[in-house]
């Protein structure tokens, strides 16, 4: 019954999944626990509201999705569930995060996170990963710019930036799974999917809301960009030029004597370039 579900949702605060079978079956995961790990839900931890066997069986039988599922795209369930939590304000529509620098200028600049180590780590934003923030989702142009570095088949991010910072983990997940597609495209298996001599990889794959573009340099550094699909004004040429700018700035970073190759990128010049690019898109 919906009331039991609401009680379960209230009681289980750290797990922000609403008790809706539709929700869970499309996710197949339990959710953010606030400490950076995602766990497949065990039967005991699922909460009382879901003792209905139908929900359980549905979740267990759906396989883990191959392409990244938009984690928070699940419908919110019965309308009766919503009033329980609407008193909570979504976090990002309010004041600036305390660590931001500069004044709140244009609305776009208010949403851009100040660069700081906490802003770019996935763990920092998990507290804001509440599904109910979807209630007030405005049609924003979400753009995530991420660099992954490959050192002998190791892929770890050198630089990740997204605007706005809500639901960052979803983007990280998307970027990580798109690395597979990038590897596929650059491996010279004679498939001629992409011109082997080009650095720009083009559209990697479209999900329902986002498009993912890739670019690989000769030094095996991968740039991945995630753009909102509703931004139809962004043409291929513009994406190409953005990647060129990224590559140029990365080259400058590389030649900086204070930068050790393999570290996270801390250069402010690089940040400013990325900021200007995101502003231009948004």
């Amino acid at each position: 019954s919906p009331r039991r579900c609401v009680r379960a949702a209230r009681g289980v605060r750290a797990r922000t999944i609403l008790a809706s079978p539709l929700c869970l079956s499309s996710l197949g995961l339990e959710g953010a626990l606030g400490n950076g790990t995602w766990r497949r839900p065990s039967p005991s931890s699922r909460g009382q509201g879901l003792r209905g066997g139908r929900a359980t069986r549905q979740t267990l039988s759906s396989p883990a999705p191959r392409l990244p599922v938009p984690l928070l795209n699940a419908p919110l369930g019965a309308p009766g569930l919503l009033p329980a939590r609407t008193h909570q304000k979504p976090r990002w529509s309010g004041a600036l995060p305390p660590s931001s620098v500069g004044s709140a200028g244009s609305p776009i600049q208010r949403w851009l996170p100040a660069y700081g180590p906490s802003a770019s780590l996935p763990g920092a934003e998990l507290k804001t990963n509440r599904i109910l923030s979807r209630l007030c989702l405005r049609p924003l142009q979400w753009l995530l710019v991420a660099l992954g570095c490959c050192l002998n088949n190791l892929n770890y991010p050198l630089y990740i930036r997204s605007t706005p910072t809500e639901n960052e983990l979803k983007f990280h997940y998307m970027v990580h799974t798109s690395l597979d597609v990038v590897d596929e495209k650059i491996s010279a298996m004679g498939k001629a999917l992409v011109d082997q001599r080009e650095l720009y990889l083009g559209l990697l794959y479209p999900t329902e809301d986002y498009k993912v573009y890739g670019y690989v340099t000769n030094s095996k550094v991968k740039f991945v960009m995630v753009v909102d699909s509703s931004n139809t004004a962004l043409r291929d040429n513009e994406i190409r030029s953005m990647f060129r700018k990224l590559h140029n700035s990365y080259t400058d970073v590389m030649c900086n004597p204070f930068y050790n190759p393999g570290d996270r990128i801390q250069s402010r010049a690089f940040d400013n370039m990325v900021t200007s690019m995101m502003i231009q898109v948004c």
Partner: protein
Amino acid sequence: MADEALFLLLHNEMVSGVYKSAEQGEVENGRCITKLENMGFRVGQGLIERFTKDTARFKDELDIMKFICKDFWTTVFKKQIDNLRTNHQGIYVLQDNKFRLLTQMSAGKQYLEHASKYLAFTCGLIRGGLSNLGIKSIVTAEVSSMPACKFQGTMQKGVTDTPNKMFQWILCHRNGRLRRLTKPNIILKT
């Protein structure tokens, strides 16, 4: 490179500077060559990033070596490598009959014993360039008669180690976990 004389003179001073600091005890004896090579390594990484910015993607190792012999050497030393030999199993020998950094020194056997100091930086340059392109290697140089010299590169396919303090994202596709490991991991590639 604007004018080759600039880099030539700077390089000579660099070598003598490192050796002077060795005499004063800042650098241990025997580590000078390593120091020069490490300098060349970092420079090579940056240079390669700049030079490969506009080139097409490389198909394989041989393509990369050809790029180093032709474009890279031309941009740095204003001439190409005269001879590239390989055994197709990871060993490449680059032969330069008139190495720019050595032409000023002698044209025969004089000062042969000092030549290795002046080749260390270039060895590092090659090693840094290769490492940024994804190839781990060891580069050595030998001189039999100035100013000709040979650079030998041995490509390594084996143990790769991660830098320290890096985040590693490993997604286990089996059960859909996203984990963040902060401990350095040694990954063996067979």
